[in-house]
């Protein structure tokens, strides 16, 4: 198992390298110079050129890319922001906690609504309850986050004065962003729970469990749900991954200093190096959550655990064979 985790952690490296290469390439071919934006419209062509030289923006593609990687490896630095003149990593780390708090709670909220709704819809399949639950879930997924954010802001903050309009000076400020980020994934969670439960409920062992005379509750919770969990965990993992990367729209509307907001401002100000750092950190979070999801599979399903363990063993036999040759 530990071998499996270590192997997976090593597999993260090519993914992160790939991320840097892709995003770096996209930004490299963008034609607006951040130097021009920093120096303003009055700056001469020479001043812009000098600034670009200072940042190394006029070097060839491979030199710039190589320098970026070298900085990460040798100094653990993601570079210095063109606009704020601060280390990118520090800027991200300052903002990450806000995003993580909101993301974690929002994903938890959506899971706590989505899974029970999905189970209910599956148990009461083709009844009014099923239709209502399914429709509610689809509706949750259909409301665009910016509309939801603005309407909440209007009703709860501007009209009723229950919550602050924006910012997170007190814990009250977190409520609306959490709801805004938590509503949309309900659709996916509920849908996946419903279809996975439906598939499981039709299995022979569920009929056996019922025939044994077990209580319906035991059948659903102990036999059906446990076996339906794998696809549900996949979706829950995706929900957490997406939420933890920050919701750009709700962070922008509620003016929350988080990863999404930094990303947004770095894009509008052509601060490519900050943008690259943000995407890299987000990709790392995504991959890390995927890894945790895969580990939870093993905890839930002994068959998968056996598989993971086998990989390690197979790897060992393979090595032995190679040594023999």
């Amino acid at each position, binding site marked *: 198992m530990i071998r499996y985790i270590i192997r997976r952690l090593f597999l993260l490296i090519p993914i992160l390298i790939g991320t840097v290469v*892709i995003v770096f390439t996209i930004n490299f071919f963008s034609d607006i110079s951040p130097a021009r934006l920093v120096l303003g419209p009055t700056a001469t062509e020479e001043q812009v050129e000098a600034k670009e030289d200072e940042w190394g923006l006029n070097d060839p593609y491979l030199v710039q890319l190589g320098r970026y990687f070298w900085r990460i490896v040798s100094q653990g630095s993601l570079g210095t922001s063109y606009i704020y003149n601060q280390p990118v990593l520090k800027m991200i780390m300052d903002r990450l906690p806000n995003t993580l708090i909101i993301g974690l709670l929002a994903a938890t909220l959506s899971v706590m609504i989505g899974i029970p709704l999905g189970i209910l819809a599956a148990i009461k399949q083709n009844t009014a309850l099923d239709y209502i639950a399914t429709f509610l879930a*689809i509706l949750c997924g259909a409301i665009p986050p910016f509309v939801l954010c*603005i309407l909440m802001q209007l009703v709860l903050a501007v009209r009723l004065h229950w919550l602050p309009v924006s910012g997170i000076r007190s814990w009250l400020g977190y409520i609306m962003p959490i709801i805004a980020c938590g509503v949309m994934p309900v659709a996916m969670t509920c849908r996946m729970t419903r279809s996975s439960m439906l598939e499981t409920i039709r299995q022979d062992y569920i009929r056996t469990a019922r025939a044994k005379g077990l209580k319906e509750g035991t059948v659903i919770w102990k036999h059906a749900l446990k076996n339906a969990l794998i696809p549900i965990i996949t979706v829950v993992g995706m929900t957490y991954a997406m939420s933890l990367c920050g919701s750009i729209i709700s962070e922008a509307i509620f003016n929350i200093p988080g990863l999404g907001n930094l990303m947004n401002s770095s894009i509008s100000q052509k601060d490519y190096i900050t943008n690259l750092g943000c995407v890299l950190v*987000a990709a790392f979070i*995504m991959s890390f959550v995927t890894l945790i999801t895969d580990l939870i599979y093993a905890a839930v399903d002994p068959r998968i655990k056996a598989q993971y363990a086998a990989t390690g063993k197979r790897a060992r036999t393979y090595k032995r064979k190679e040594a023999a040759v």
Partner: protein
Amino acid sequence: MKRWLETRKLARKGEIRSVGKFSLMVRRFCRNKAAVASLVFILLLILIAVFADVLTPYDYDAQNLSEKLRQPSAAHWFGTDDFGRDILTRVFVGTRVSLLVSILAVGISTVFALVIGSIAGYFGGAVDNVIMRITDIFMALPGMLFAMTVSAALGTGIWNTAIALGFTSIAPIVRQVRASILLLKDQEFIEASKAFGSGNTVIIVRHVIPNAFAPLIVQIALRLGDTIMAISGLSFLGLGVQPPTPEWGNMVSVGKDYMSEFLPLILFPGIFVILTMLAFNLLGDGMRDAMDPRMKR
């Protein structure tokens, strides 16, 4: 053989009709009222998009500053915006923009994904390995962040937004195409085609892609909805489609500044996004149930 001839004779006379897989699917689909209603709504949206210019007496770009921010009335059913432009007309033209961009984006990603996924699934081995590892990298990139980065690099506008959204959603479709190709690859008709001496290109284009396309249709319906949401999100943030071209997201973005006194600019485009998303989702679900009836009952 005799029975087969008799059956064929009857079928020619029109006394019996064969029920194909497709007509069964259509029948199952028609039984799903929500899906049919969604289809009707989407057709309506397409009509609105096509005839956006002639449906209302106003021009989407005609400013009338003396009539700005008017509440809905008989003359302006949805009211007027901050430049006195008719909101109904702008929502209709916005429908055209949203549908156009999302169809372009989904088209781009589907075509590329079909080709790349087919190659990966059909050839297998090292080619498959390389393509799938690259796909893994794209899958690790958070969708919205990536779309924003590409959109910012390409610039705004209808085509660039379509390319940005299409490019960023290739990877998940590649995976799906590859999975269905892997199932197809070992079936008899592919082998038969090989036995006839068809080359790889012919097999992929004539046999593999058409057969992999059917399960993709559901995915395409769902993606169209998601893409419309993404377009409006990008446009709301000032990327994507920019004013003066009306788009639901950028209309709401303007409406945000007037939210405490003037709601129509948020409400009506918002309702259109919600209804469109609902329609595409219910349509996708209906199509999936019709194709794979095991799930339904």
